[in-house]
């Protein structure tokens, strides 16, 4: 139980940052693809990139949810799934008494 407590508690600590990193990566990749496909101008892409990189959490998640090139189900899976996964792990940690 002790080792599992440590692992789950640690995962609850790092997961949100890893998910955020993934959102940013996917959002920037999508922006790049849209510029290449001439769906988006450079100025708009730079603006969105700043929003994704600078606005904490909401910037990347918001972009994924509104981008026309990211399927709705995929955006919902990544954004909603990321949040739900974190909440689920938090719930487990709280149940196990493994996190501060």
């Amino acid at each position, binding site marked *: 139980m002790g080792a599992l407590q440590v692992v789950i*508690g640690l995962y609850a600590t790092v997961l949100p*940052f890893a998910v955020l990193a993934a959102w940013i990566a996917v959002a920037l*990749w999508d922006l790049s693809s849209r510029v290449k496909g001439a769906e988006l101008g450079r100025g708009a892409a730079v603006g969105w990139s700043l929003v994704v990189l600078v606005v904490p959490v909401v910037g990347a998640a918001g972009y994924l949810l509104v981008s026309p090139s990211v399927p709705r189900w995929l955006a919902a899976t990544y954004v909603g799934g990321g949040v739900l996964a974190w909440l689920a792990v938090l719930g487990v940690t709280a149940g196990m008494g*493994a996190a*501060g």
Partner: protein
Amino acid sequence: MVWSRRGSGPGVGLGAALALAALAVLVGACSSAPEVASTIDMEDNFFDREVTRIAEGEAVRFRNRGVVPHNAIDVDGAWSTGEAAGGERFDLMEPDEEVVVPFDEPGVYRFYCSLHAPPDGTSGMAATLVVGDVDFQAAGDDAPEEQVTEWTGVTRRVPQEHPTIQNAVDAADPGDLVLIAPAPETPEYLADDGRYVYKEQGDIATPYLTIRGTDRNDVIVDGEHERPIGINTVAADGVAVENLTVRNTTGNGIYWTEVRGYRGSYLTSINNAIYGIYAFDSTDGLFEHSYASGSKDAGFYVGQCDPCDAVLTDVIAENNGMGYSGPNASEVFIVDSVWRHNVSGIVPNTLDSQRLPPFGRVTIAGNLIHDNDSREAPALGLQWSAFGNGVLLTGGMDTLVTRNRIVNHERSAVTVGPNLSRNFWMSGGNVVTDNVIEGSGYADLVLAGPALTGNCFDGNTPSRTVPGALETTAGCGPDAASGAQAGPADPDRGAFRLPSRYHLAPTLSFVGLVAESEFGVQPVNDHRDTPHPPDQPPLPGGVDAPVVPAVDVFAGFGLDLDDIEVPDAPAELVVDRGSVPLVGGVPLGLGGFSLLFGVLGWLAPFALFASWVALALLDLARRDDLGVGATVAWTAGVLVIPFLGAPAYLLAGGASLPRWLRWMSVVGATLVLGLLLGMAAVLGGLL
């Protein structure tokens, strides 16, 4: 956190170890060393069993598994671990050291540790070795002593009626007063510094005595850096020691162990090597109006008791390894005192080398805690890991830190974190409220992980916490209370508390401090060079003060936490520590090993894991060979399976990324990082 270490000490490299091993083989081939029939472990302040039996001609291995030095000495002088190791009778064994003692003569050998038991081995850290086929009957428990609550009216004067303190103590009956005048100004009492001192160790086995100096600053018991303890009370309940100074012992200044009822009042402890004023395995006690400096472990120490029912009030600890250390000591109240210029301030902690882990329900309130980041104070290697913290709770539960003024600490004002002993002890349920904090280098408040639930922070107005915004995300709620210290509800306290708010970077930073001490970066200061304090305030009333045996001490003290306020800052206290820059919780500028372990042990693994998740989700988003169901399922696996979901997808999920990239990211990078971390651990002496 305080980390215990195992293995060879610094300077014993692999080559030397191999050479020693080869030498041992050669010696073994050429001699008939006795067979080691039994191993006796020395834990912190007890041998692991009362009676050991071996055959004639066999040997015993003594092994120090504690975190402080010990030894084993035959009460009749027949042998000692020091002599068996080729040294002197009272030589100490450091942690992890082993000594083999051969026994050719049959008999019953009573032995003791000179730091933690009286020389007759009747109590404290003592045990029995039976060699050969001899009659031995273990003694039964003695009948409990009758409690003496009042002075008998008998005063035994030293040196007027008794030439030594020991002589007076041996002659005294329970309830007597032993009154000690300054040592006679004759050559045999003259110390190197021109003071006249008692050159003896007082071993007290008679309960309910009051040992009182007539002058706190001129009645001096001096260990001359040869004797282990100044005043040594073992298994004698109700002993009060008052109004005198103990200095220059090789172990403890004033010590109580295995007692119920003790009191130390108006005591001064100077340059006693390990501990200053010290209670172990004892309950119902009080340290008050006392001062301790120049001890490598701690100025004040309460250990192994639950409940301790102990109070420390109006004490000053400075220039020690730790101001206060409290391994496995629960229900201790540390109030209205000053802790300054130590390597670390107040450090309740949990150790497996003592009984009753973990510590819990300690109250730290109304203290002035400042500048506990001294590089000039003496410290044992282990104590260096606590460097630079005002209050450090390591591996304990339900402790309350409130209404203290905590200023100028290179690391933190308050850190709650884990402790690695033989077990890994996490902290939980600790409450940190309403402290005034200034001048912290790393952070004002730190919750180092991993941690259990219930740690909370409120009303401290910190400028920086690690992790960030602790008071917002780990608030205490209106019913903030800690263990036995329940207080009134406060509706203004934030109730919101995320279950996961600790940070690993400070934990790795502590590992870096351990590496520093192993590597030899830790400052090494001789405790004998610690400056002496000015004269300290005497016992009011002096020789005419009431004589009260230490009975029902805790209840009689009448501690009222509601009366305790944040102490004022003295005029000379200037806030002069600035914040160091942090990257992901890793401090820049607090030592190379802290940075090294912070990067290799926290930042790099975290970045690697984040890259796996990002790569996996990016790859899933780019794939058009998977249906919605499979993509959702893999996404769930990547996110929900702790640490293994993302690498599993990258290696076995049919990812479209090049094979070399996936294997290099997951396997190659992990191996290289592990190798670098291992090399850092070897470099830092941790492996």
